[in-house]
């Protein structure tokens, strides 16, 4: 289980990243925390010809808050995300999610940018970003463009990122003092959830973002509306029409639909008790 050979280049500026992407095109992969990518390399599930290590790019680091918006650099590691006071204040949903992500050693290396760019549909952070209605900042030589989370996740491991782009940061409108909850059911500590729910209240409305139930993290607008109106049972019923979960080793689609309803009830209780 050794990776196929590849070349390796380190970038320290975004300009270098863009140069390298231009030179190597689709045969290159960006290496951030590497906690999914290096495993895929070891398993030879990925065999890029060159890895572009962006860990030294200072412009992709840091967490800041200005003008009511939290900006989280793409290279922010999960452990940093979980410990950051600005995140805890303005996007507590993310802080809640961090302890559910794998194990301490993984959280020390894995990055938010890597997680979002990989877009594993069972991962916590993509769903949180969706529930937070965050904006993803995509950088290329042409400059930055901003993509709403709902437009970013396009399919199984598919995102709006173009081959010449780097995910630079995530921007989130402050959710300070707004109730939120992260609920998930995983077989063991740190496992990907069978079903998970990131729920964020928002000025009388409610955003429910699900993970582990489809090809991408998903919002369920009808359930959101019902729950916002206080109709938990109605929201649970609505899920049947809004979720079409896959069958896998955990069980049939009905398992996930059932568990989603349970999580919805628990999320409603958690939000109420907030």
């Amino acid at each position, binding site marked *: 289980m050794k990776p196929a050979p*590849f070349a390796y280049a380190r970038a320290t500026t975004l300009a270098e990243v863009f140069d390298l992407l231009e030179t190597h095109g689709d045969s290159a992969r960006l290496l951030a925390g590497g906690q999914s990518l290096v495993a895929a390399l070891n398993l030879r599930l990925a065999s890029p010809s060159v890895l572009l*290590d962006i860990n030294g790019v200072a412009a992709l680091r840091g967490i800041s808050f200005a003008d009511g918006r939290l900006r989280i650099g793409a290279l922010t590691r999960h452990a940093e995300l979980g410990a950051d006071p600005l995140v805890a204040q303005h996007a507590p949903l993310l802080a809640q999610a961090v302890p559910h992500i794998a194990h301490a050693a993984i959280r*020390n290396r894995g990055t938010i940018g890597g997680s979002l760019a990989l877009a594993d549909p069972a991962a916590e952070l993509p769903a949180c970003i969706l529930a937070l209605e965050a904006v993803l900042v995509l950088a290329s030589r042409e400059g930055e463009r901003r993509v709403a989370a709902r437009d970013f996740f396009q399919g199984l491991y598919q995102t709006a990122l173009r081959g010449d782009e780097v995910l630079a940061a995530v921007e989130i409108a402050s959710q300070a003092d707004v109730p939120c909850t992260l609920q998930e059911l995983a077989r063991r*500590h740190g496992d990907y959830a069978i079903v998970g729910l990131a729920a964020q209240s928002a000025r009388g409305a409610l955003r429910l973002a699900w993970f582990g139930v489809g090809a991408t993290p998903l919002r369920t607008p009808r359930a959101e509306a019902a729950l916002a109106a206080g109709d938990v049972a109605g929201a649970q019923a609505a899920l049947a029409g809004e979720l079409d979960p896959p069958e896998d080793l955990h069980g049939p689609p009905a398992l996930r639909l059932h568990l989603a309803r349970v999580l919805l009830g628990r999320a409603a209780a958690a939000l109420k008790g907030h």
Partner: protein
Amino acid sequence: MKLDLSLTVNGEAISARVEPRMHLVDFLREVLDLTGSHAGCEHGVCGACSILVNGEMVRGCLMLAVQAEGAEVWTVEGLTESGAIAALQEAFVARNALQCGYCTPGMLVAAATLLKANPSPTREEIREGISGNYCRCTGYHAIVDAIEEVSRA
């Protein structure tokens, strides 16, 4: 293709040339003969390759050696010689918190990391703290006992 790599391992300055594809635990084992860290699954699940890089616990199989350029790496060999984990090692032996010993170097790193962050963990917190480290032999109970004993000392 091989790249130059300079780093500090167990306090010793190391220079080597490595293939980019070599992960850090293979580098430690194959190039430096530091065979205490083990490659148990090579996909980040078992924790047998847990080591310290710049003071933080990482999976040695999920980091390329070339990514450790300039880093300070500590493995069970160095942590033993420095005495940094002596209390844990003593408790592991005294309580038989190991059988085959294959998970033990990684388990010790996880335990030391846990106790650094939380010097007085509950048994549940200990179980959570080592939940990313697979042990097929012990049933975990004695490992939890040993860590608990050190936390109370």
